[in-house]
């Protein structure tokens, strides 16, 4: 048995501690240790964005971050986007624009889009496409995703 490490971190605003093996990725910790399965695994090597979370506000592929790296930092996952019984405007716009078909890419896109709007509240279509180029969607052809993000930017 590999020895485990205690990690203290803040996830979706809540301070907590978890136990993980040093070799476990943050994605694995979120999904298998903490039961936060909103972050998805599409490739496990940084090429699809399905596992996107915000680490100290920065967009990362959680499959490329180790669980132990969350020590003392804040993690934001899709489970933390809605607040006070209200969907985040991005979530609402994704629904209204039918920006998801199968939905497996959606959590990653939502966090990527959120980090975009945090940096740039009024992006152009080209900026949206550029920022979202790290996220793969095989179902939608991106059209409705890009529209949803642009519309959400207008609302936020």
């Amino acid at each position, binding site marked *: 048995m590999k020895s485990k490490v205690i990690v203290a971190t803040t996830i979706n605003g809540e301070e907590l501690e978890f136990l993980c093996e040093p070799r476990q990725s943050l994605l694995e910790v979120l999904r298998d240790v903490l039961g936060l*399965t909103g972050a998805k695994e599409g490739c496990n090597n940084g090429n*699809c964005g399905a596992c996107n979370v915000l680490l100290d506000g920065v967009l990362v592929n959680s499959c490329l971050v180790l669980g132990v790296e969350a020590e003392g930092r804040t993690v934001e996952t899709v489970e933390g986007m809605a607040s006070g019984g209200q969907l985040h405007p991005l979530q609402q716009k994704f629904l209204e624009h039918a920006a998801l078909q199968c*939905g497996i890419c959606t959590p990653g896109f939502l966090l990527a889009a959120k980090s975009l709007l945090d940096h740039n509240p009024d992006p152009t279509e080209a900026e949206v*496409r550029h920022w979202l180029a790290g*996220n793969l969607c095989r179902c939608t052809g991106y059209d*409705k995703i890009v529209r949803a993000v642009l519309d959400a930017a207008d609302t936020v």
Partner: protein
Amino acid sequence: MTTTTTSYKVIGSRPLRPDGVDKVTGRAIYGADVRLPGMLYGKVLRSPHAHARIVSIDASAALTLRGVRAVITAQDLPAIGDKIADLGESVVNLRYASNNILAHDKVLYHGHAVAAVAADNVHIAEEALALIKVEYEVLPHVLDGKQAMSANAPILLDDLRTNELGKLGNAPTNVAEHIRHQRGDLDKGFAEADVIVERTFHTATVHQGYIEPQNATALWNEDDQVFVWCSTQGAFSVQEQLAELLQIPISRITVTPTEIGGGFGGKINVYLDPLAALLSRKAGHRPVKMTMTRAEVLTSTGPTSGSHIRVKMGARRDGTITAAQAELIYEAGAYPGSPVGAGCGVIFANYRLENLQIDGYDVVVNRPKASAYRAPGGTNAAFASETVVDELAEKLGIDPIEFRLRNAVREGDRRPDGPEYKRIGLIETLEAARSHPHYTAPLTGKHRGRGVAAGYWGNWGGKSSATATVNSDGTVNLIEGSTDIGGSRASIAMQLAETLGLPYEDIRPQVVGTASVGYNDVTGGSRTTFGTGWAVYEVGKKILAEMRQRAAEYWDVPVESVQVADGVFAHNGDQMSFRELAGKLDTPVTASASVHPQNYGPGFGVHIVDVEVDVETGKVEILRYTAAQDVGKAIHPSYVEGQLQGGAAQGIGWALNEEYVYDDKGRLVNASLLDYRMPTALDLPMIDTVLVEAPNPGHPYGVRGVGEVPIVPPAAAVANAIYRAAGVRMTELPMSPARIVAALATQSTNAA
């Protein structure tokens, strides 16, 4: 644009999907999210060789590793003789299907499963794989369909004989089947032509590319009941496949479908499910979860066939096609069953032809066994025929859409395989594309060009069952069994709401497993909104009839005197809403229906694309894209548009970038999403859609399947645009930068 006049209350609107909130909050449970008490994790050991005999497998060291609970090999599968079974959507030899999930005596491709392990966690399982010793005798391999047909090619399956035009051959071969469609007199047809174009094409193996890898969790109970949770296009198909592969009765298998992260045809065949079940039994009846890595998805699932295609077509000066001939060689992968039959059906389906011959060959090669991919075989075929059609139009000086209109099939014309078309919408779709502003918009700038192409897909009806119950407040619970991959809960619930005359919000649909609803075929073949929609239409009619009966009893009048309209029951001035009546029911009202409708009718799409070719680097940029399609009736237009956009995007990836690359040992070298490059948001523009609504007379609400047609035209449309932009006729997919540069170089050498 619409040609419908029927007015609907719910159909045609754009409500939010019932499963939407779960999916945007991360709450929806996909296959990999399943967790059961005491669960183990399974992993698969895969062949590093393209073709080899398995001399021995020694798992003793793996079994001594702490935390390893079971190891299985093909010895753990029941022996299955040759039996042809209708599984899922396709006909397979079960012995081959069994050998594909765990190699028996030979491995036939890099990534072929050889053994599987269950352990306390995934890391231990991976360590255990490294401890399993497999001795191989490496054999010569063949990757290319044409080479596999040659006399001295290595033979993959010793017992395979060619089904040569209906007769079985007697020599070992890699050609599983040769099929043919034929009519009229080709020689006469070509003699009548003023222009003839003949070209040969090659298309690469490509993958469905769903973002969610395959997964399955299974529990084999002490009483031999088997429970499976997985993301699949069809729970009932998984159940049937498991029954055949494990040789146990269907009634002992319960399959519960989870949410699914894309399928496109690739999540019909089982890979992990039977292994997880066997591991569970061997590991002391503990549940076992298995998920694939992305590399495994690419090496060992899907893909769709690479192909060699030759097309020859002739036309008169007036634009009439006089003859068409094609030969299609499709690579089936390791076991027979490429979509060459469908390719033969698609290749000339758009055109009225008196003289035609189509020959198709299903050829095994040392690549993963092909599985369905959105309009299987259609994109390859249309790439070949629709670029030749473009060239004919060009040579005759006729506008490409006009040329297609002069030859387009309409009701009463014959398909290449014989039967007559019923009501179809190709003409309307071509006209819609021609009158779309995109088609006539000025396109200026160097190395820019516009291309068009049309595409056909036959669609499917399949079997569907559904059940609905009326709640005491007048809302309705709908139980269906069709996997929802792209919003079908909404399109199905909308059809029930329309039938009942209730608001959409009053219907609560749920997708359930094999234990909870009647049989449903897979969500595939563009059938769900059509077929399961029809099932709920029948359910709705039964509910209304029963409710009318109850209203009659309530008023104590003959049932014939009760009128029903828009969810209101009326008799002689008395009125009761559906909701009021529901509150008065002393015996519950519930209804089920099962259907197997046949009048699905094919669909047609016409795509227009503008590209810019960078003649230095060979990179092709998509500047503008419009997809027009005959959709019958769009139940939820947003999700219909989404199908057109998604299909176009996949087709563009197939056209420009995607391909399986092998080394000289037959190993797949680009088994990651970095190297197997699918389109990103940056690679695509907005994709404009035109929904041509010519209602399908074969469906109560005019629905036609829409999901598959849109992947058929893109590769040809892009190739035609590249020709107009850069002057080269591309005959190979993908039209990657390197191939474009090479084609431009050849062109300038020829010109010099």
